[in-house]
């Protein structure tokens, strides 16, 4: 392709989204359509969100960030530091207690969302990513207990190996293998939890906070999916919220 035939680039091309080609512009159009900036960073929230039960999601996120930051410090300084120095003990404890709070806040968040039936209104994927994050967090906490380098971790590892061998996964996930467990704990599982949390948050922004049962969602501008053509056979919009179908 010569320079004269190249697709124009620059501000004009970005503004006129339909005129650009390639996977980047297609991805951009799709991303903006799915999550426009006013949804990604909203100025207002529905009035029904004024309840303490809606606070536990962000408390979980805050505790996760503290666990992540303290874990980074532990990784940088090493076990000789966290086992012997006063500051090391403090950061080690900070890591433990932030995780304790993370799990507690997450379970309270889970209770609240369960009793709200928070999967309503096309929020199933939000619910599923939250549930999978919970499972990944249990694995992360478990491998964390395995790498404490004390008698407690030895006890947990020797008990857990029987369970792992009983289900046939001991050869691939060897809880007695310290090197493997520390890599699961500081690389694979935190990455999984972080990516899942990011996806969960973006889905919360996209679908909005779930309204209380028997209360309609606020009059937000309809998304592209909500303005999709009606199903010719049923006369309803396939992906519309149940409340909107009646």
């Amino acid at each position, binding site marked *: 392709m010569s320079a004269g035939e190249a697709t124009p680039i620059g501000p004009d091309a970005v503004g006129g989204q339909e005129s650009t080609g390639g996977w980047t512009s297609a991805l951009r159009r799709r991303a903006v359509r799915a999550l426009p900036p006013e949804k990604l960073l909203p100025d207002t929230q529905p009035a029904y969100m004024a309840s303490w039960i809606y606070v536990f999601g962000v408390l979980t996120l805050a505790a996760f960030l503290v666990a992540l930051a303290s874990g980074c410090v532990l990784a940088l300084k090493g076990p000789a530091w966290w086992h012997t120095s006063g500051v090391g003990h403090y950061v080690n404890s900070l890591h433990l207690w932030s995780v304790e709070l993370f799990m507690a806040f997450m379970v*309270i968040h889970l209770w609240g969302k369960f009793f709200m039936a928070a999967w309503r209104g096309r929020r199933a994927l939000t619910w599923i990513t939250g549930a999978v994050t919970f499972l990944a967090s249990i694995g992360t906490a478990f491998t964390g207990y395995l790498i404490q380098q004390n008698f407690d971790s030895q006890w947990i590892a020797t008990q857990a190996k029987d369970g792992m061998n009983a289900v046939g996964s001991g050869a691939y996930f060897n809880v007695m293998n310290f090197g493997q467990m520390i890599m699961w704990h500081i690389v694979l599982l935190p990455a999984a939890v972080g990516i899942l949390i990011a996806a969960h948050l973006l889905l919360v922004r996209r679908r909005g906070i779930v309204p209380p049962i028997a209360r309609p969602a606020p009059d937000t501008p309809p998304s592209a999916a909500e303005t999709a053509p009606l199903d010719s056979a049923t006369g309803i919009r396939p992906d519309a919220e149940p409340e909107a179908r009646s």
Partner: protein
Amino acid sequence: MPVDPVHTAYAAAVNLNGPGHYLDWGVIQISAANLTVIAVMIVLFILALILPFPKGRGRR
């Protein structure tokens, strides 16, 4: 050292050194620490439902 029941109960609740205290009902067994955490979580959940939330700006 004289045994003070109140002090003993307080120390058992907050002292995490040494072997844990366990409660059991038949096949159900749980440490006092874990049971305390679950109880606190349930209390927090109930309080979150009933306590009024401060009024804020920017809600519709």
